């Protein structure tokens, strides 16, 4: 099986909201250093052409911003993130409650998951299949616990990018293309 094109990967997710994980902001930034920025521009353009809307959550923003020692550096990161996403989804009581449930589920299954990833999972759970997570770190989401299925995936210079889609009946569904 050959690696699918971006166009093939994005079929069927028109008008969905795409929650960007921290790795996406870092990878997109670092792609400049590897002369791979056109790949990311093309990807972003393809999403926008399908009326997809980029969003993220505050813990992701903080994870991306931290490590900056200068206000100037901090602002560079902030301008990039704010320029890319339409909204930073606030954490509300429902997301917190979902996060508690995920904490218990992960713990029962002996999984150690970062707080940011728990909040991401909780946010996906709230919004159902209207929001998909774009991440490279699928291992950060204990897929076995959450009965996920795999469908879309494509590779970039920085690694494999995947979409994780949630639904209210199945808390998180991971979709990716399988590579040969």
């Amino acid at each position, binding site marked *: 099986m050959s690696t699918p094109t971006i166009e093939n990967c994005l079929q069927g997710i028109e008008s969905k909201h795409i929650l960007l994980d921290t790795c996406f902001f870092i990878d997109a930034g670092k792609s*400049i250093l590897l002369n791979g920025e056109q790949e990311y521009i093309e990807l972003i353009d393809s999403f926008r052409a399908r009326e997809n809307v980029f*969003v993220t959550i505050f813990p992701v923003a903080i994870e991306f911003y931290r490590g900056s020692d200068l206000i100037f550096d901090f602002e*560079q990161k902030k301008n*990039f993130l704010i320029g890319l996403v339409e*909204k930073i989804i606030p954490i*509300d009581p429902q997301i917190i409650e979902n996060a508690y449930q995920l904490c218990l589920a992960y713990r029962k299954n002996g999984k150690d998951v970062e707080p940011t990833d728990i909040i991401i999972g909780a946010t996906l759970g709230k919004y159902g299949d209207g929001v998909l997570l774009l991440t490279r770190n699928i291992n950060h989401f204990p897929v076995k616990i959450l009965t996920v299925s795999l469908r879309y995936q494509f590779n970039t210079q920085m690694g494999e990018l995947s979409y994780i889609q949630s639904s209210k009946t199945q808390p998180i569904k991971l979709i990716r293309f399988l590579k040969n």
Partner: protein
Amino acid sequence: MTKEQQIIRSLKEGIKRDAAQDNDSLPKASASFDKKSLLKKMKGVAAVLKKEDEYSNDRELFTRHREQAHSS
């Protein structure tokens, strides 16, 4: 009311205010997408990330640059 109580009251009011806002709604797609602007921002971030990677590999460089930054 003590200073501490004032801060707690202010925080509680802020939480109520945030909760009253329409946080559930997700934005619609915007028509504008400035590729040049995004690319410029990506370049800015790339320089920052490169520096941070250098710092993580060289603590002395990090300390030296931080001291310079905070003294200027």
